């Protein structure tokens, strides 16, 4: 609070030795939609102010290792790829292979079991001396199983980039009114929450991604890049996840 009262911030000119370019792959499949998406781009210099350079002409194959079936992807817009229609059953292992030029990147991910999302509700934070409303996600965690969650919130049609990735280490088997505490909402807001159950390594990816999210203001002594499940040195992740959605208006 002293920091709040006394400190000041200013923007400063900044120069840094730039990194070598890296390929960034963000690949998602789920058990609800009958298609997968892959987004490929290149990393940038820290102070670059262009859009992330898309990577076109990649060759992408998804293989269901359990049922031994292949799915092909085609490029829809530069750097964005979409699969043909397929079904991704729970418990199946999937392998994604991305070929860019002469380089190949591979990742494997298992489709997790779903958890039922009952509803979302809202908590007026002013009664605790806080500000605005927080969304509560209501669901029953399954006991005795390590579950990993990711929540994606959309407010008035705008998807938030705030990261909420949690495991049930501290609430195994408990009914949750899980609080999405990072955004402060107002009466009249239309809120949509996508609750994903994700894999352990994808949880670790998002949890560490939020650790190095410098917008959070904390400065770590040893910040590190989140561990990608891709081989070949690509950044990003390949996530197979199960999801459910709920929508409500704050009244």
């Amino acid at each position, binding site marked *: 609070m002293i920091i709040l009262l006394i400190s000041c911030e200013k923007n400063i000119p900044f120069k840094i030795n730039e990194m070598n370019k890296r390929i960034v792959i963000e690949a998602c499949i789920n058990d609800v939609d009958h298609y997968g998406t892959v987004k490929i781009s290149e990393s940038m210099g820290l102070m670059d102010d262009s859009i992330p350079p898309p990577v076109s002409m990649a060759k992408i194959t998804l293989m269901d290792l359990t049922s031994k079936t292949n799915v092909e992807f085609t490029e829809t817009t530069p750097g964005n790829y979409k699969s043909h229609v397929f079904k991704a059953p729970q418990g199946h292992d999937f392998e994604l292979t991305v070929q860019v030029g002469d380089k190949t990147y591979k990742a494997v991910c298992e489709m997790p079991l779903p958890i039922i999302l009952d509803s979302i509700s809202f908590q007026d934070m002013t009664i605790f001396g806080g500000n605005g409303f927080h969304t509560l996600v209501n669901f029953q965690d399954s006991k005795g199983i390590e579950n990993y969650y990711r929540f994606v919130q959309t407010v008035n049609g705008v998807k938030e980039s705030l990261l909420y990735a949690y495991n049930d280490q501290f609430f195994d088997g408990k009914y949750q009114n899980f609080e999405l505490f990072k955004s402060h909402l107002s009466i009249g807001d239309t809120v949509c929450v996508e609750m994903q159950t994700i894999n352990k390594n994808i949880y670790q990816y998002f949890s560490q991604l939020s650790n190095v999210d410098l917008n959070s203001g904390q*400065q770590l002594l040893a910040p*590190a890049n989140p561990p990608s499940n891709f081989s070949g040195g690509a950044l990003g992740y390949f996530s197979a996840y199960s999801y459910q959605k709920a929508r409500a208006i704050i009244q």
Partner: protein
Amino acid sequence: MSARFFIVLFLTTYLSGFSQSTSSFVLQGKVRDARTKATLSGTNLIFSTPIPKVVVTSSTGDYFILLPAGKHFLEISMVGYEKDTLTVNIKKGMSLDFYLKPSEKAMDTVLIATQKRLDNLKKDLIGVQRISVSDFKNLPVLFGEKDIFKSIQLLPGIKTAGEGSSGFYVRGGSSDQNLILLDGATVNNASHLLGFFSVFNSDIINNFAIYKGSIPSEFGGRLSSVIDIHTQEEGLEKFTMKGGLGLITSRISLQGPIVKKKIAFLVSGRKAYPDAYVKYSPDTLVRHNKLNFRDFNAKLNIVLNKRNDLSISAYKGEDYFGLGTYFGIAYGNELISMKWRRVNNSQLNSTTTFSYTNFGYDIKIKNSNSDLMILSSIRNASLKHEYQFTKNQNNVFKFGIDVTLHEIKPSSIIASSGSGYNSVEIDPKRNFEGNVFFNHSHQFNKRATMNYGVRINSFSIFGPGNYINYDSLGNPTKYVSYRLFQVGIPYVTLEPRVSLNVEIARHQYLKFAYTRNAQNIHQISNSTSANPTDMFMSSNNNIKPEIADQISVGYFKNINESIYEFSAEAYYKSLYRQIDFRNGSQLVANELIERQLIYGVGRAYGLELQFKRKKGPLTGWIAYTLSKTERKFSSVNRGNWFNARQDRPHEISLVGIYQLNKRWTFSSIWVYYSGSPVTFPAGKYYVAGQNAYYYTERNGNRMPAYHRLDLSITLYGKPKPRYESSWSFAVYNAYNRENAYSINFKDDPLNANKTIAVQTTLFKLVPSIVYNFKY
């Protein structure tokens, strides 16, 4: 007998029969302040005829010397007191107490002599600084609250852990490698208000010593330094009340006799209330927040008889930080120490100390989903028994033993039944530690003194408890279980220490030291700022004791009748079994934290120069430190040496105090240091709907250099017989330098494709005013 001080002479019957074969006799006693009757440690008694001998009073004000029969010319000197001389005629063993009169000058000004007069150079070990709190009396301080921890950071070789932090680095060690003792009890977390203040109320501190080079073998347990702090022992004769009123802190202390000359007490309280101003914040959110601390000291000194005295000292402090009603953290220390000092006979003294220390925090979180508390604590109880045997003036032996029981309770979660969380109880970890130490101080001749000793440390797991062994990749390999009271196989560390002090020419001294230290209590933090929730770990089946070897050499010179003093010290330190964590480790509430830890080595070396002016209306010093501190871990930066967080090559401090007259004193501080190493991102990429930052090398970058000027004016009230008062006006960061506390990167709010670097400055110009009084 001089008019300047009084001598009270006691001829004690029990000493009268004592004699040495060479017809030498014991002279012993205490040196006290003539006004307050407080004992004075570090006072020099110099006997110059027929053979020169020097003795320095101990931390309890006692001195002890063997002298041949005959007349001796004696000079007694102490910083802040009038020096005087007298002749003592030794015919038999006797006890003499001396009462020194505070010098007029010292009452109004400060003597910035961190080492006392020329004789100190002769007496002290290398890398030791003894400091009286009055030395720092008139220096400008942030928010007007005097803080010894802020002041010692102006000394060479001691670096601040950052603005707004009471942590400090000594010769390349991290901030958890400093042993901080208050009246003999270990202080595990010395910070208030998340580090803006230290837990030590400077009104009641008598003196303290900092050991950064050669550490005497009676101390151990931390690698880099020992800060040995003693509270006052005044009040055997009369009552005094002291206090101060400031904008965000106030304090008051009272001391006096319960039974005159037999039992004296001290009580003191301090409160900080920065949240008092929060009410006026324009932000309604901020208005509900709370941030404050208070602390309380009490002490009892009991003179049992001529040979025995007892002192009991206690401390309790509590900090509170709360956000609305949904989050609150309370943390603080509890300390108690009991010290029994006994003069066994003319050659043997003993001290027995029992101490108990407890640092803990509890966090309360209450919202719609959770109603829980997170609790953690670190405690220890320790018993130390030591002897000092003075064989003769040239040979003093110190030896003793101490045993300690440690208990660390890692953070446990206690959830209410309706809460969305489960309670998680992590078993406390207990350890048993034993030490045996021995030290011999041998004066070869007038010019050379050698000090050597050893400390043998044994540290083991104390059951019950369950432990898991991990391999170098963090995979479990073995489960080990200890029964109730079962003691594990100990880590035994031999810690030899030796130092040499030679007067190479008149007023010029060359000193050398080698010290090995072991550390078994480790503090682990992944944040740039010290937090009360930083985790403590003790050595166990996976974590081995940290070890440090240090060699240092120094040259010291007194110039112009000790008006000036010059010192140069160089050191090289090797650190083994240093602890760090894997990149991106999750440290909060992690039961299996040990698998995140990695072990490596460190090295630190440097040169410390200091030039002081100790007398006259203008006093002060300039200090410069050139140093390098590195660490090496196989899994960090491809196993190469890298700059440690503490690595700041250049560090300068300039301190000046000018006493215009008895009422006005002006002082200033200027500090400069190189920026700390930091890990900045090397690039960015777009993932999960946001810009993510890409990191290449740990500590591959450096913060901008830091510099700051502070000024202060102290106006003393017109001298009144029973009442003293002063006003202090100070300006922190007088030229309003925007020093970087942190540099963060974020998306430009106007253009999400653009990244901006944002520098946070903690304190721009901060004025303060404090009223101090003494009654």
